[in-house]
Every structure is written in C-alpha cells, then in structure tokens.
C-alpha cells in the first residue's frame, strides 16, 4: 500500500518561531489532508490540498503532487499550536476513499 512519511517526528519551538512540516507519499493521490490533533484528541481539519498552495491565517500548505510531497508551514507559532500534526492521503488507485495517515509530527511550542 501507499507509504506516508512525516518529518520531523518531534519538534520543539519557542513561541514566535516559524516551522515547516513535511509529508512524503509514495504514490499518486486523489486527496491529501492535514490535521491538527489537539490535547483532547480531536482531529481538526487544517487543509484539503491534493495539489497547489493554500493559506489560512498563520498556516499555509503546499502540495507538489508530481514530486509526491506536501509541506505545512506554521508562522509565528503560539502555544496553542502544540499537538500532533497528521498528513493523510487517499491513493489514486483506491476505490473506497480510505485515508492513509502518517505517524504525525508532535509539536511543542514553549512560551
């Protein structure tokens, strides 16, 4: 099946710093989504981005489908950005639309 690799696995930032999270995937995809899992375990939709670039406030994401990677940028990080960030993809070859998740990047933003 499709491989989804996220890096780095862990990241510690000081408040105000910028960061880039990466997601590599091994096959063509119909869907790529970024999620933030908050301390209560909820999965918050950040971006639906199978290709191109999107921005939402301090967050932006870019997917280069032809090179099979996606990047999530967090600018001016805040302590509330802490949590785990997951990339999830649906292979183009898939018929049931199942999302395959990466193992996540665990982000801690310190004051």
């Amino acid at each position, binding site marked *: 099946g499709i491989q989804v690799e996220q890096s780095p696995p862990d990241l510690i930032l000081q408040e105000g710093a910028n960061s880039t999270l990466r997601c590599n995937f091994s096959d063509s995809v*119909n*869907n790529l*989504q970024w*999620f933030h899992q908050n301390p209560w*375990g*909820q*999965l918050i*939709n950040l971006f*639906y981005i*199978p290709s191109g670039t999107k921005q939402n406030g301090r967050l932006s994401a870019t997917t280069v489908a032809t090179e099979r990677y996606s990047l999530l940028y967090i600018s001016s990080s805040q302590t509330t950005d802490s949590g785990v960030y*997951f990339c*999830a993809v*649906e292979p183009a070859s*898939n*018929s*049931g*639309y*199942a*999302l*395959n*998740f*990466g*193992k*996540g990047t665990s982000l801690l933003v310190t004051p």
Partner: protein
Amino acid sequence: EPEVTQTPSHQVTQMGQEVILRCVPISNHLYFYWYRQILGQKVEFLVSFYNNEISEKSEIFDDQFSVERPDGSNFTLKIRSTKLEDSAMYFCASTGTGYEQYFGPGTRLTVT
C-alpha cells in the same frame, strides 16, 4: 458550519460487552467512514460505507465489527464482544461529492 457529531464522547465498557458508537454525518453527505486511533499511535482506517453497503474495509474490521445506517441521519459502529485491545479513540467521518473528509470529535472507548 455543518459538522459531524459523535456520541458518546467517552464510553467505558467491560471486556466481552457489546458497544455501539453513534455518529451523525453532515446531512447530504454520501460517504461515511470509521477510523480508530490507539493511544500514541497513528489513525487507522476501519471501514467505508456508501449506498447502504460497505465499500471498503481494512484487516482490522473483522467479524466483531459491523456498521449500519439505521435511518437517514445516524451511522453506527458496533463491536460485538469487546476486547482490551479495542480500547482506542474512534472517529467517524463523512464526504459529500468531493474527496475531502470531515471528521467528528471522536469517541474514546475504554475496555476494562
């Protein structure tokens, strides 16, 4: 903004008991999913459901699991005889005509 809802938020059950986790997908969505996340691990796909039947299921989704859309709004996941290893967060998701999946807040299942 419409959202997926799940009940209960936390369920504690004894090993061997049956549990039913409930989800209300976004109305007019057509595809429904269940995922689970064991504590500290990644989110794993269980099953997808379309047009009143399972369209795809993972190896995790064995005979102990079943899904149902009993009416026009609810989507349920039943675990027939729970095991300790079924303890996890269970997420429901739904999709409309596009590919983007909208996730509910999850049900934390604890099997003792």
